[in-house]
């Protein structure tokens, strides 16, 4: 509509593509609705849904901005958040590399197996040698290509004098290949190429599942610092105004902040009176009135009139950047966490390698000759190689995270599930976590006309109370009345004319502590009260947590009185007026007391705490930074998913342990055979596939775990 008149035909350069996460898509109807209805809005050319990632890619006119598109989606009934293009980064690439390696391993496995089966069924002499050579020619490049992820990771671990799951895998594969090559060259009877390739195939399947899970949820979670202002209008000494990107701003600059604009730096107001939304910093939805001399922070949104501010701290100096840095440091402690697979391999690898070494030594002493002894030692390595163990963890975690996703909990990765299973105390933020975090209007006292007028007025304003009122009214199915001459006075309210009567939605006269606004229609006035209610199943969720041995406590940045009120209602302990640093030290104190805390919070001020806690969960309404810092995000108005996530995580770890027992037990049965030199490539292949099958089947039992 605002396209330059020259380009009548749709010009490709005027269209850009923006991606949004839309967690609310649940069915085919949602896809159809978005893809059909969205292009009908002006400026939108096409929309394409990716249902797995819960994303919509919108091709639209350059003149439409993200806020406009989000609103278009909201009109269809879907809440959406834009995704910064670069935030998706390397993850899909990693999965593609693994998938390609899996494809190559699958190809190699099938062809080598074809040749091996012929050898097992009795081919010998020249035919067997030919088949071994053919197997070698297929297997060598396949192992070199598909084994890279394991070799690289094992090499990294060894370089830092550590060991992980990939070390025994790499040693097993390399030795099996080397032995098979030797056998092939000398015309020996047994080659283990198919074991090596099959091992890689099964393990890669596990890795692909692991990467798939991380990608799916990471894509569903918004971008870091996405809402911080990206640029500011700087007023030069000569009065000219120029847009300057956030990174080039300097302290001392005078900046003009338009209504609805996000602040890009910290500063002090020099001229103007307004109200700002600090939700991103504090998680509190109530707007804060500001005037000359008030200190405002980057990330805040100007809800009222334009004002001028003198910048004091910019770029990496802002309070927002400070919190991001705190989070970064807090997250360091978590990176020391050792995944269960690696812990298992720390115990498993030495046992296996000692066993192989003992077999070699034993047969040498028994006088079997070094060739025979080496073959037996390598057979031990192959038969105990943790093939099913590579699947034990990822299969269980993928099935569990899929089950949780269906119930509205997005778990970021496998390590998050492992840590969630271990927590034994829970720390909750209040606003936005235990409560819904948005003001809900009590509209019971309004008649139909008043409701229509209220919606007509409320939807014209960006004020959080207006937004909350408009939400409540829309949910009640109210149609907006047509209000003329709408005018908004910052700090006062919004007014207009309806049916030749002056109407207004304004600040109540009495300065009471409660949130309320006054609806005036002609000479009549109604007071609409707002409350930030507790999530409806708070008590239930907390009691389920305590039933599983997790005691909850509140740690809030809010004032003491409201925090205590909530604590009394839920009968749990509480600490109020905690700064981000206080929250960090409270968590550190819990850790020192030997507890493993679960942090549940939404505000940016919870960010460092979320990053440092043993495990953390954020609601879907949380600030971007908090969602990024948390291990899991839950969607919806219930708190139960928190308890559910912990329960499913514990069940998952139980299954993982069973899988380990199955995998090790199964291999242990074959070890005596290997030790006494009876393992042929056929037995190795059967043992490997059967144990993998058992592990996968056992993991699938988790599919119903979230019910």
């Amino acid at each position: 509509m605002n396209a330059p008149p020259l380009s009548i035909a749709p010009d490709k350069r005027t269209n850009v593509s923006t991606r949004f996460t839309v967690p609310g898509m649940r069915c085919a109807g949602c896809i159809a609705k978005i893809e059909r209805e969205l292009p009908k809005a002006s400026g939108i050319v096409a929309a394409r849904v990716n249902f797995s990632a819960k994303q919509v890619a919108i091709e639209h006119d350059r003149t439409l901005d993200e806020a406009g598109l989000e609103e278009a989606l909201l009109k269809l009934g879907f809440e959406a958040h834009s995704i910064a293009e670069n935030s998706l980064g390397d993850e899909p690439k990693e999965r593609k590399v693994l998938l390609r390696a899996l494809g190559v391993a699958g190809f190699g496995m099938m062809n080598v197996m074809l040749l091996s089966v012929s050898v097992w069924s009795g081919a010998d002499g020249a035919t067997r040698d030919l088949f071994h050579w053919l197997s070698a020619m297929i297997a060598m490049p396949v192992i070199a290509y598909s084994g890279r992820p394991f070799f690289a990771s094992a090499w990294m671990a060894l370089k830092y004098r550590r060991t992980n799951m990939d070390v025994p895998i790499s040693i097993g594969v390399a030795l099996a290949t080397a032995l098979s090559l030797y056998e092939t060259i000398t015309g020996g009877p047994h080659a283990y190429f198919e074991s090596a390739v099959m091992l890689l195939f099964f393990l890669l399947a596990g890795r692909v599942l692991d990467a798939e899970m991380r990608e799916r949820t990471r894509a569903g979670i918004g971008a870091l610092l996405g809402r911080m202002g990206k640029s500011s209008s700087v007023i030069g000494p000569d009065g000219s105004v120029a847009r300057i990107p956030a990174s080039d701003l300097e302290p001392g600059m005078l900046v003009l902040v338009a209504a609805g604009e996000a602040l890009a730096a910290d500063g002090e107001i020099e001229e103007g009176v307004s109200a700002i939304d600090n939700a991103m910093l504090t998680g509190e939805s109530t707007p804060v009135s500001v005037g000359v001399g008030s200190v405002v922070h980057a990330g805040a949104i100007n809800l009222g009139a334009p004002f001028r501010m003198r910048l004091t701290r910019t770029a990496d100096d802002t309070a927002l950047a400070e919190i991001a840095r705190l989070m970064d440091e807090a997250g360091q402690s978590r990176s020391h966490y050792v995944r269960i697979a690696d812990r298992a391999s720390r115990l498993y690898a030495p046992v296996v390698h000692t066993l192989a070494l003992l077999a070699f030594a034993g047969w040498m002493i028994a006088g079997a000759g070094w060739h025979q002894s080496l073959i037996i030692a390598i057979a031990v390595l192959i038969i105990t190689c943790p093939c099913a163990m590579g699947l034990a963890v990822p299969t269980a975690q993928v099935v569990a995270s899929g089950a949780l996703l269906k119930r509205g909990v997005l778990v970021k990765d496998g390590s998050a599930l492992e840590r969630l299973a271990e927590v034994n105390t829970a720390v909750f933020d209040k606003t936005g976590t235990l409560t819904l975090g948005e003001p809900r209007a009590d509209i019971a006292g309004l008649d139909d006309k008043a409701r229509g007028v209220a919606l007509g007025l409320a939807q014209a304003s960006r004020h959080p109370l207006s937004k909350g009122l408009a939400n409540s009214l829309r949910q009640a199915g109210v149609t907006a009345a047509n209000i003329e001459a709408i005018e908004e006075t910052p700090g006062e309210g919004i007014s207009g004319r309806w049916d030749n009567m002056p109407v207004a939605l304004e600040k109540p006269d009495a300065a009471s502590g409660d949130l309320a606004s006054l609806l005036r229609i002609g000479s009549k006035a109604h007071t609409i009260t707002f409350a930030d209610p507790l999530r409806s199943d708070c008590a239930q969720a907390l009691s389920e947590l305590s039933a599983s041995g997790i005691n909850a406590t509140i740690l809030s940045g809010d004032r003491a009185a409201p925090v205590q009120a909530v604590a009394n209602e839920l009968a749990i302990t509480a600490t109020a007026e905690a700064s981000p640093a206080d929250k960090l030290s409270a968590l550190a104190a819990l850790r020192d007391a030997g507890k493993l805390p679960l942090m549940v919070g939404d505000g940016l001020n919870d960010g460092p705490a979320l990053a440092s806690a043993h495990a953390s969960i954020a609601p879907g309404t949380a600030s971007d930074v908090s969602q990024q810092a948390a291990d899991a995000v839950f969607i919806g108005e219930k708190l139960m998913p928190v308890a559910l996530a912990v329960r499913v995580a514990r069940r998952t770890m139980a299954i993982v342990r069973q899988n380990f027992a199955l995998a090790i037990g199964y291999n242990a049965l074959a070890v005596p055979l290997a030790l006494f030199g009876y393992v042929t490539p056929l037995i190795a292949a059967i043992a490997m596939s059967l144990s993998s099958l058992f592990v996968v089947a056992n993991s699938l039992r988790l599919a119903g775990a979230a019910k």
Partner: protein
Amino acid sequence: MTGLAFLIPIALGMGLLGLAAFFWAMRSGQYDDMDGAAVRVLIDDENDIEGDT
């Protein structure tokens, strides 16, 4: 045994063909939205001019 001279290249060729098909499918985004493909069949075509779903 001379049959092997034909059969083995054929088996390998078919395997490679499958691998190439897999790579093609991955590059053209067939695996990008697995759940979406499963539910898209349930969408009714409202107007038959746009049959691109």
